[in-house]
């Protein structure tokens, strides 16, 4: 019997035959949802080996390593209650945690609050750049709902839609998206002027297709103004929620896009690297979740014109939904994404 876990992190024992069935079911579900090819027999065999490996920790074979980018490095230390300033946290990532890249970010991690403390954030970026070596991105979540009532000036589409005010809800989202786009441009320009290598717009489209639209337009404008800016767009989910429903970018409807199409759109806007996300189902097993996630991410990496970094963390990329993600699952997901998914990074 093999000891593995469920998507909520709890242990479960399965026979190898049961694990194979879970993998096949996860692959089939991923291929069906994203309308993409399934993993090959060889891929599933390799995934069996990775999952059934009896050791707690699994790693790639030498030569199969990939690049790591991050979402808000300072936040990870703040969460632990460690009173360390942001520049020192990034130095720690650089010299003690083997980080391939750095990401400065405000603890709230949303774009809107950073506006109020922009000079202080620029200082932290400029100060850190003097003493660190890897590329440094400034990261924010677009978090479009922060611009709607009661937190912001725009009408709240999720209150208008249940009343049947669909047109009004769509117009409110466009107004909200325009405010978000302005803020993303403001942050992008100011952080680049402070010396940052670029930006990471993380958890993009959590507010639906209008949020994705605002981010794509911001990326396009930043790319036009700063041709050499490093721009990463990390997505928030495997599926673009159609809160607006009709928004198009470069002639393509955004609602309903799965990772491979999301990656194409980010590339079309001028993004340098894109982060693909597949959500974890807590009621399904780890073998099912990682197989499903790999199916979508592998295809996204195959068709994307730019590097794809899969998001492999709490509740995404096959990893159980836990604030303390189990190392056995994270190391297996990490290894599988590199060796089976052929991702450019995580």
């Amino acid at each position: 019997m093999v000891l593995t876990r469920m998507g909520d992190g709890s242990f479960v024992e399965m026979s190898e035959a049961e694990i194979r069935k879970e993998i096949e079911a996860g692959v089939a579900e991923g291929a069906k949802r994203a309308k993409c090819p399934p993993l090959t027999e060889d891929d599933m065999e390799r995934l069996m080996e990775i999952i059934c490996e009896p050791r707690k920790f699994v790693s790639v074979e030498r030569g199969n390593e990939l690049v790591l980018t991050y979402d808000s490095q300072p936040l990870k230390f703040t969460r632990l209650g460690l009173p360390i300033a942001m520049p020192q946290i990034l130095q720690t990532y650089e010299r003690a945690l083997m980080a391939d890249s750095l990401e400065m970010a405000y603890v709230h991690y949303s774009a809107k609050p950073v506006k109020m403390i922009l000079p202080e954030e620029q200082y932290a970026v400029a100060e850190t750049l003097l003493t660190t070596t890897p590329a440094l991105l400034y990261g924010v979540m677009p978090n479009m709902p922060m611009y709607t009532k009661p937190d912001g000036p725009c009408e709240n589409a999720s209150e208008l839609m249940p009343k049947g005010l669909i047109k009004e809800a769509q117009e409110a989202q466009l107004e909200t998206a325009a405010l978000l786009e302005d803020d993303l441009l403001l942050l992008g320009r100011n952080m680049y002027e402070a010396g940052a290598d670029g930006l990471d717009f993380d958890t993009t489209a959590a507010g639906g297709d209008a949020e994705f639209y605002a981010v794509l337009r911001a990326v396009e404008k930043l790319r036009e103004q700063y041709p050499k800016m490093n721009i990463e767009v990390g997505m928030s989910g495997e599926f673009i929620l159609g809160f607006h429903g009709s928004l198009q970018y470069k002639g393509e409807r955004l609602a309903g896009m799965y990772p491979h199409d999301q990656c194409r759109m980010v590339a079309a806007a001028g993004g340098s690297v894109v982060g693909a996300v597949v959500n974890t189902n807590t009621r399904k097993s780890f073998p099912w979740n990682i197989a499903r996630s790999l199916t979508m991410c592998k295809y996204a990496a195959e068709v994307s014109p730019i590097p794809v970094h899969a998001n492999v963390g709490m509740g995404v990329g096959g990893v159980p939904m836990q604030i303390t993600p189990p190392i056995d699952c994270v190391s297996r997901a990490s290894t599988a994404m590199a060796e089976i998914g052929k991702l450019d990074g995580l």
Partner: protein
Amino acid sequence: MAIVHSQASGMGGIRTAGDLVARMQLAKSMRLNDAKKFVADKLKVSLLDLTDEVTMREVREDLDIANVFMGYGAGSRGIEAKANISKLLELEINCVEKFKKKTGMLFK
């Protein structure tokens, strides 16, 4: 989480050549294998050397592009190392360009 990924599949950051490969992905949208080959060619090492901390410490010291040891007696660090990386990879690095502009320095 960051520790698990760095041990399971990460390239190793400035302990090896991970930061250099990451730079080529982020700045030029190079796919992983292309970025690794580009960096290996520039460093004149093999692909496997890129993640070998023993080889890479010597290479990084020789090229003066910083590694994890930044105590007294260490070579270039931070912005100094990035100026050397910019020349090595023939890549404009935003903060290095700003440093040159602010100081009026022109690097050969």
